[in-house]
C-alpha cells in the first residue's frame, strides 16, 4: 500500500505544476472581488438608507448582496474540479500515476482531498476578502461587521457552495474522464439540467423544486433572508448528498475500469 503522505505530496505537485490550476484560481481571484466591488458601489446611498437591512424584512437592502459575485465564480471552480481529473486521464498521465499508486480509489480520494483543501483555502481568502472589501465600499453606516446578523454564516455558506461545485466538477470528470466531455457534462448538469429540472414537477410543486436545484440551494446557503426555503444546514446536507451521488459511479467503478 502506498503511503498517503507520498500521494498527497505528489498530488500537490501535480495540481500546481499545470497552468490550468493557476488560470482557474486566478480567474476566480479577479472575478469575485471585482464584481463584488461593482455590486457594492452600485448601491444608491439615499435609497439604501431608507430600506431596512435584509434580515429584518424581505425586500430590504442586503449588505451581503455583493457576495453573489461568488456565484459567478462557481464556473471556474467547477471547471477546475473537472480538469483536475480529466487532465490526467485524457493525456494518459494516469498510467504513470497508477503504477506508483495501484490503489485507484485511494489515488482518486487523495486527489479529491488535496483539491478540496486548496479550494477551501482559496475560497476562504476570496470570500472574506470580498466581504471586507465590499463592506468598506458601502455608503457610510450601511456596512456591517462579521458578527452582525450572522453575516459570518453567509460567508461560510459561500465557501461551502464553492467547495460543493468543485467536488461536483471533480465527480463528473472522474466519471467521464475526457476533458471536453467532462466540461460539457458539468455545464449541462449544473446549469441546463438544473434549470430545466423544476419543469418536470407539477406546477404546484415547481416553486418548491426550484429551491432544491444547485442554484436554489446556493441561495439558501448565501442569504439570511427569511423565506420558506430550506435552512442552511438542510441546504448543506442536500448539496452533500448531490456530491456523494455524483461521486458514486467513479468511486464504485474505480477498481473495475481499465485505464
Amino acid at each position, binding site marked *: 500500500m502506498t503511503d498517503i503522505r*507520498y500521494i498527497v*505530496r505528489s498530488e500537490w*505537485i501535480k495540481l500546481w505544476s499545470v497552468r490550468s490550476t493557476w488560470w482557474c484560481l486566478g480567474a476566480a481571484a479577479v472575478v469575485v472581488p471585482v464584481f463584488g466591488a461593482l455590486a457594492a458601489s452600485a448601491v444608491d446611498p439615499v435609497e439604501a438608507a431608507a430600506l431596512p437591512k435584509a434580515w429584518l424584512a424581505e425586500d430590504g437592502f442586503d449588505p451581503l448582496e455583493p457576495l453573489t459575485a461568488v456565484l459567478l465564480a462557481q464556473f471556474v471552480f467547477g471547471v477546475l474540479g473537472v480538469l483536475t481529473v480529466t*487532465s490526467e486521464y485524457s493525456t*494518459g498521465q494516469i*498510467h504513470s500515476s497508477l*503504477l506508483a499508486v495501484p490503489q485507484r480509489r485511494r489515488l482518486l480520494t487523495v486527489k479529491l482531498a488535496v483539491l478540496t483543501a486548496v479550494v477551501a483555502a482559496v475560497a476562504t481568502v476570496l470570500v472574506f476578502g470580498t466581504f471586507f472589501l465590499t463592506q468598506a465600499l458601502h455608503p457610510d453606516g450601511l456596512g456591517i461587521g462579521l458578527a452582525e446578523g450572522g453575516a459570518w454564516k453567509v460567508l461560510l455558506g459561500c465557501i461551502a457552495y464553492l467547495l460543493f461545485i468543485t467536488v461536483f466538477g471533480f465527480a463528473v470528470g472522474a466519471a467521464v474522464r475526457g476533458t471536453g466531455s467532462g466540461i460539457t457534462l458539468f455545464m449541462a448538469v449544473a446549469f441546463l439540467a438544473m434549470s430545466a429540472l423544476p419543469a418536470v414537477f407539477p406546477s404546484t410543486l415547481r416553486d418548491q423544486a426550484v429551491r432544491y436545484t444547485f442554484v436554489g440551494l446556493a441561495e439558501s446557503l448565501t442569504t439570511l433572508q427569511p423565506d420558506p426555503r430550506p435552512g442552511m444546514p438542510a441546504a448543506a446536507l442536500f448539496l452533500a448528498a448531490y456530491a456523494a451521488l455524483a461521486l458514486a459511479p467513479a468511486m464504485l467503478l474505480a477498481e473495475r475500469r481499465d*485505464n
Partner: protein
Amino acid sequence: MIEVSDLVKRYGRATAVDGLTFTVRPGRVTGFLGPNGAGKSTTMRLILGLERASEGRVLIDGRPLRELDRPITRVGALLDASRVHSGRTARDHLRVIAAANGVGDRRVDACLELAGLAAVAGRRIRGFSLGMRQRLGIAAALLGDPGVLLFDEPANGLDAEGVQWVRTLMRDLAAEGRTVFVSSHLMAEMQNTADHLIVIGRGRLLADAPIGDLMATASLGIRVPEAKTGTAVGLLAQAGGDVTVDGGDLLVKGLDAARAGELLLKGGIPIVHLAERRSSLEEAYLELTGEAVEYRALEGQS
C-alpha cells in the same frame, strides 16, 4: 522477475491475450516479440495492472503488483511516451511520479542527467520531440531504481545515436542483475540486444527460448539435377526431412547437412550444390509468426 500465468484478456468477444504463461528472469534482456496487434502492449499493461486481466495472474518478484510497497522502486516502465501531461515541465513530470513513492528530487535530477535531458529539465514537454519524450519516459522508468523494467518499443522515434544509447542502457541494466523486458515488432532490434526471446502472435505464446536457439533453426539449400528431383525429395522426406521444391532447388528442414548428403549419395544422386543456411532471426521470426499473421489476414477477409 516477472511471472505471468494463464493470462487472458478479452474485450467483448475479441481475445487480445489468450492464455499466456511465461517467466521473465533477471540478469538478462528478454525480448518480447510479435507482429503489430499480437497483444504485446496489452500484455505489458496487464503486467503493470493498468488493465484488469480476464483470467490469470501476474507476479512481480513473487507478489501481485498491488501488494508492493512503493511500487516504482520495484518496477519501472516505459509504455507510450506520448502519455504525459505535456503542459508540465520535464522535471515536474518526474517529480510528480517520484513523490508518489517517496523518491526525492535529487534522484529526479540524476535521472534527467542520465537520460540526457538535464538541459531541458525546465521546459514544458509540449515542445519535446518524440525522441526526447522517449528519453523522458525512460528516465521515469528508472526513477525508483527498480529491479524490474518494462520497455514497450523503446527505440520508437529515436535517432541512431539514441537507439544505440537505449541498447547499451538495457544491456547495462541487465548486467546489473535487473529483469529487463523489452517489446518490439522488429527482429533486427532484438538481434543485438536480447539474450532471450518470448514471441507471441494473436495473443498466444509462439516461442520462449534463448535467442541462440531461435537463430539455430537451420535449413539446407540443395541443388540436384532437375531429372533427379523427384527421387531426391522422396529420399529426404522418407528420412524425416521437410522438403520444399523450387525447380532443381530443394529447401530442406529437419535434416542436417551430413545426413542429407549421405542420403543423396547412397541414392546415387549427384549433388550440384549443398549449403547450410542458418536462418537469420528475422527468418525464424517470420517462420514462427507466419501462421499467426496468415490467419489474421484470412480472418480479415471473411
